[in-house]
C-alpha cells in the first residue's frame, strides 16, 4: 500500500510529461511514423532487388552499422553542422544590420527592394556552378554558397520588417523626443522581430539545403558528401540513412534552437498568435 503510493508519487513529473505528450498529439504522431515505416517495409519487400532500389528500414539501420560503428556518421554530421553554424552566424551578423540599414531610408529601400528580391530567389544550388568555376572544389566554395544562401532571405525579410513598422509608433517616439538611433533600437528592430525570426528560419533552412548540395559537389566529408560517395559505391541504404539524418537533424535544429527564440520574444509580446 505505502510502497505503491510512494511509487506513484515518484512517477508524478514523468506522468505529467506523458500527459502533455498525449495531449500534444504525440501518440498519433508515433502511430503515423510507425505506419510510414510499415508501408515502406511492405513496398521494399515487394519489389525486385530492394537492396539497390529501396532497402527496408531495418536494413538501412543494419547496413549502416558500418558508418555508425566506425564513428564516421557523428564525424560527418559534426562537419556538416559546423559548416552550417559558421555560415549562418556570419550570414545573420551581416544580413540583419544590412537589412535594417536599407530599411531606414525610403528611397534607398525602394531601390534595393527588387534587387534583394531578385537575389533571394536564386537558390544556392543555382549559383553553385559559377562558384565552383571561381574557387574550385574547395571548402571556400561550400562556405560561400552557404553564406550567399542565408544572407539574402535574412536581409530581405529584415528589410520588409523595418518597412512595415507602423508609422504611428515611430511618430509616437518622435513626439517623446527620441533620437534616430533610439527609434531604431526601441521601435524598428523590435517591430521587425517577427520578420527577423522568419528570415533567420528561412535563411538557415535554405542554408541547410545548400550545405548538403555544396558538400556533394565540392566538399570533403559531411552528410552530403557521404550520400554522394555512398551512391557511387552503390550503397543505397547509406544514401537513405543520410537523407533521413538530414530531416531529423533539421527538425531538432528548428525545435531546440530556432523556435525557442521566437517563443521568447514575439509570442510574449503578442505579435504572433499561438
Amino acid at each position, binding site marked *: 500500500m505505502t510502497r505503491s503510493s510512494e511509487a506513484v508519487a515518484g512517477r508524478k513529473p514523468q506522468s505529467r510529461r506523458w500527459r502533455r505528450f498525449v495531449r500534444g498529439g504525440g501518440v498519433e504522431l508515433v502511430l503515423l511514423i510507425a505506419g510510414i515505416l510499415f508501408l515502406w517495409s511492405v513496398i521494399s519487400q515487394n519489389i525486385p532487388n530492394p537492396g539497390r532500389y529501396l532497402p527496408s528500414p531495418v536494413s538501412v539501420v543494419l547496413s549502416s552499422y558500418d558508418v555508425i560503428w566506425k564513428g564516421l556518421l557523428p564525424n560527418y554530421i559534426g562537419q556538416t553542422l559546423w559548416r552550417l553554424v559558421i555560415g549562418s552566424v556570419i550570414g545573420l551578423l551581416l544580413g540583419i544590420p544590412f537589412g535594417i540599414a536599407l530599411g531606414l531610408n525610403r528611397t534607398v529601400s525602394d531601390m534595393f527592394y527588387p534587387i534583394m528580391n531578385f537575389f533571394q530567389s536564386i537558390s544556392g544550388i543555382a549559383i553553385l556552378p559559377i562558384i565552383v568555376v571561381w574557387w574550385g572544389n574547395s571548402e571556400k566554395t561550400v562556405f560561400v554558397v552557404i553564406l550567399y544562401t542565408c544572407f539574402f532571405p535574412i536581409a530581405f525579410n529584415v528589410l520588409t520588417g523595418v518597412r512595415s513598422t507602423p508609422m504611428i509608433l515611430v511618430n509616437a517616439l518622435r513626439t517623446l523626443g527620441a533620437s534616430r538611433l533610439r527609434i531604431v533600437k526601441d*521601435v524598428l528592430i523590435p*517591430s521587425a522581430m517577427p520578420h527577423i525570426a522568419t528570415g533567420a528560419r528561412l535563411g538557415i533552412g535554405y542554408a541547410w539545403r545548400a550545405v548538403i548540395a555544396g558538400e556533394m559537389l565540392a566538399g570533403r566529408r559531411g552528410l552530403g558528401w557521404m550520400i554522394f560517395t555512398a551512391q557511387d559505391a552503390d550503397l543505397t541504404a547509406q544514401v537513405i540513412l543520410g537523407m533521413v539524418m538530414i530531416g531529423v537533424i533539421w527538425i531538432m535544429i528548428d525545435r531546440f534552437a530556432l523556435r525557442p527564440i521566437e517563443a521568447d520574444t514575439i509570442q510574449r509580446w503578442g*505579435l504572433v498568435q499561438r
Partner: protein
Amino acid sequence: MPAKLVVDRLSHHYPDEYTGEDVHALDQVSLSVEDGEFSAVVGPSGCGKTTLLNILAGLLPHTEGSVQVDGREVQGPGPDRGVVFQEHAILPWRTVARNIGHGLEIQRLPRREREQKVQEFIDLVGLSGFEERYPHELSGGMKQRCALARTLCANPVVMLMDEPFAAVDAQTRITLQEELNRIAIATRKTILFITHNVDEAAFLGDRCFIFSRRPGKLKATVKINVPREQRIWKDLLSEKAYTDPRDEILRLVREEVFDDEE
C-alpha cells in the same frame, strides 16, 4: 501673459499623389490656448483636425501661417508637446511600466527617480497591478490609459490629444472622460483635445473651437463656464451651464453636416 499655444493664419494643402490635385485641408486657422486651459476642437470628419494636430506636434511641416508653443515657432517634434494619438500607439514589446517610463528614459532620468515617477502616473490613471503586463493583455480602455500616462509622464508643456477615446465603448468612455478631467485638475496641463463628439467636447473643454467642413476653418468659439470640480456626468446633465453651450455647439456642428446634404 502670452498664450501657451498660438496658431496664426495657418493653412495647409496636401498634394494628391495620384490625381495631382491638391487637397485643401486647413484654411486660415487662427486660435490660441492659454496656460492651463483645456481646449476642445470639434468638427465633421475630414475637416482637418488631425492635420492641425500633426502640425502642432511637428510631425507635419507647415508652410503657410505660423504655429508657436511657448513663444517659439514649431519646427519638428519635441518633448515639450506630448501627443495621444487616435489609435493606440504604445509599443507592444514593452510592458506597461516601461511604456509609461519611455519618455523619461529618453530624457535620461536616473532609474530610481524614473521608477518613482512611473508609479505615480500608473496610480493616477488607475493601472496599478498591471505594471508588468504587455499591451496585448490589456483592454482597449486600459491601452488608452497607458498611452495617456506615457504622455503625461514625459511632462510636456502642452498635451495634444486626437480622439483618444473614440475606439472604446460608451461606458468606458464616460469613465475615461471623468478620469481625464480629474487628471487635468491634478496636473493643470494645457490641453488641446480633438473630438467629433459634441457631448465630450462640452464636458471636457473650457473652450470649444468649432471647425467647418473641409477646408477646415475656425467657425466659432464657445466657452463652457463649469468649474472643473463640478464636471461629473450625473450632475451635469441637468446643469444649464453645461447644456446651453452644448446645444449651441450641437447646432453649429449640425449646420456643417446638413450643408453636406444640399
